[in-house]
């Protein structure tokens, strides 16, 4: 919204810009929004049950624990989808209002990638929440892993590409708008890295699948 107001106040700032360049700053913060949403909505969801005594009622219901976990996951995933949809819709509306109905078609790809990242981020938060019995601790660890680490990996100099880091892979959400993918060479050593689309999708999928599966197993066998 701040960026949109800036462009409205200074229309000349848009001169020479393409729709892709215009929408990029809006989408650039999408990964951070998803990370914060996931940490707040899901990282204490399971540990809370064990910490505050609600689990003593919920876990004695005649419902398999895997179903309970799936219900919690879906209950966090659906509002996340709505958040993503609203975010992209606003971005598209602002962009098309300035570009006479035009907006970059790469935004759809970015939106799909955001959904994959939401799956991965919720999976990681779910795993932390299942392992921990302290909701404050799981919230802090989730924020450290998903939010603080994204700033770290965006700014630190690295000798090799950190393709295995989820928050680094999440850069693809905005990079896909401009279709920026770095072709690596040995001289690169800084934050100039941009993840490859295939690698990012694969890593986000792996993070999401494995962490969700492990979270479900931990929840299934956790004793209270």
């Amino acid at each position: 919204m701040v960026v949109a107001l800036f462009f409205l106040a200074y229309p000349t700032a848009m001169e020479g810009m393409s729709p892709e360049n215009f929408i990029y700053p809006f989408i650039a913060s999408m990964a951070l929004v998803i990370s914060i949403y996931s940490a707040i909505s899901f990282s204490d969801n399971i540990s809370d049950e064990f910490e505050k005594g609600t689990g003593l009622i919920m876990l004695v219901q005649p419902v398999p624990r895997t179903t309970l976990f799936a219900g919690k996951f879906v209950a966090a995933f659906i509002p996340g989808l709505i958040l993503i949809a609203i975010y992209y819709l606003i971005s598209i509306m602002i962009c098309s209002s300035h570009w006479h109905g035009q907006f970059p078609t790469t935004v759809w790809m970015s939106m799909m990638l955001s959904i994959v990242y939401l799956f991965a981020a919720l999976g990681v938060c779910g795993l932390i929440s299942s392992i921990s019995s302290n909701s404050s601790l799981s919230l802090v660890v989730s924020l450290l892993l998903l939010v603080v680490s994204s700033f770290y990996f965006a700014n630190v100099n690295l000798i090799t590409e950190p393709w295995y880091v989820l928050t680094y892979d999440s850069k693809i959400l905005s990079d896909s708008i401009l279709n920026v993918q770095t072709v690596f060479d040995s001289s690169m050593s800084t934050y100039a890295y941009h993840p490859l689309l295939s690698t990012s999708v694969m890593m986000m999928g792996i993070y999401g699948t494995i962490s969700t599966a492990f979270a479900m197993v931990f929840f299934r066998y956790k004793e209270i």
Partner: protein
Amino acid sequence: MTFSLELDSLTKYFSKDKPAVRDLSFKVSKGEFKALLGVNGSGKSTTLKMCCNLLEPTSGKVLINGVDVRDDPSEALVHLGCVIETPSLYKDRTAEESLRYLCRLKGMTRESSTSESFRVLERVGMSPSFNIKFGKMSKGMKQRVVLAQALIGDPSILILDEPTSGLDPVGVNELESVLTGLNAEGMSILMSSHRLHEVERTCENYVFIRNGRKVSEGNVHEKEGQGGIVVLFSRPLSDEEVVRVKQIPGIGEINGVSATVASVDNESREAIMRALVLENLPVCGMESRGGLEAMFTEVGDSE
């Protein structure tokens, strides 16, 4: 005979060397009101948690209406209502909202969830229109709502872990009358409690465990009067007073502010009281001690 609850050689180890529950077996038959007794740390809560599938036994099994709670928890738990330790509902929801949600988890339709949540709230003496969020309720109200959730679906067995802890005497009486009413309607109840008078008032049978092992099982009322008579003093006796008390015929052991009376006939008791008063000792009364209390004391002394 069919049993509502069967514990078969139940064992639970939290660490390798010391089991919390050891080879524990007992049954709760249909319509029975049984108390699970034991001092703190004897394994009562661990046992009840295993019955509710909150803990996995190291060995042994729990059957609810003949269904193994580990093999088929969904089928076994549908017959069970429980209140373990200090459970909580979601703090930002009203009692009725939480109960409707739990009804839905038990597979009820939206319409029947509403009527069932009303029914269980009324059963524990609460108005369904009661519109306070759980987080803002008093302890007594919370306890009632928590009991109400255990009654959803009219379970055949109720497992309660010290349900009256923290309640005032009025709350205890109300809860007791609800529980005895449910039991009279045919519901089986297994309840752990430290309040022995409450157990003697409400329960039919008991299981006494110590260090996770069953040490005694039987009828609560058969224990009545087996604890003997004790003389109570208003303060601890001095050494000189202890010597004088011991000289009175019929006085047994002296323990802190009480002394056991060996003979139980009325004449002997009157004679003992007269002697204590004549000796100018700080006697303030004489009471009959329940059998359960005596059992607790014996276990406490031997530990």
